[in-house]
């Protein structure tokens, strides 16, 4: 609690330069408050990261099979509008889909048809086309797979992300 202003100070409102100085203890207190704020921020980031990975998505139609030629890709968002994903049609009735975020630092991966692999241009990370496993580069974890299937009406459906 702040101390009441003494009468003499009210009557003679002089201020010495030394009154504005921060004591060693006050300085340390500000530092500790900063450390606490950073710790709260860290916990917040961890919770946000967890919440994002918990959402595995629900089944929904992505695109008509005939709209994606064999060997080409289709970009979509899954499970939310903030999660870019990419789908590749391998053969007549075979498609794979992955999160487009590189598992290294979240850059966007794309399909390199001449090398037949997923490629991250930021740090030269490469992933296997079918499994999403790391082939080379700094990533240590595979791309986030999205389960997809082709239904009878020739629509490609995303079923969810495996946990």
């Amino acid at each position, binding site marked *: 609690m702040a101390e009441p202003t003494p009468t003499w100070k009210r009557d003679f409102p002089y201020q010495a330069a030394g009154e504005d100085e921060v004591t060693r*203890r006050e*300085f340390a207190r500000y530092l*500790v408050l900063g*450390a606490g704020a950073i*710790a709260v*921020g*860290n916990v917040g980031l961890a919770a946000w990261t967890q919440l994002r990975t918990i959402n595995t998505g629900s089944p929904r139609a992505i695109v008509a099979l005939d709209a994606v030629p064999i060997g080409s890709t289709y970009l979509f968002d899954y499970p939310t509008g903030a999660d870019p994903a990419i789908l590749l049609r391998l053969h007549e009735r075979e498609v794979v889909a992955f999160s487009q975020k590189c598992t290294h630092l979240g850059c966007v991966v794309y399909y390199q048809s001449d090398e037949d692999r997923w490629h991250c241009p930021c740090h030269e990370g490469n992933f296997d086309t079918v499994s999403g496993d790391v082939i080379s580069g700094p990533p240590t974890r595979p791309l986030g797979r999205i389960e997809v299937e082709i239904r009878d009406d020739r629509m490609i459906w995303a079923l969810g992300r495996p946990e």
Partner: protein
Amino acid sequence: MSERGRRTSSAVLIYVIVLVAFQIFLITVAAEAFLADDGGLAWSTAAVSVMMAVAAAAFLRYLRP
């Protein structure tokens, strides 16, 4: 303040500054974990960060008003 007290408070202050500097490093690690969707790394970073904040607060006891 005695010479010993002054040295103690300087040492405590340096400890707190080092802890805060490490905290700033930890927030960059947490940001990387966030970008890479690595929940395990994010939570362990948060745990270390909280421990450091508590340690910094505990050091305040040794600073005389």
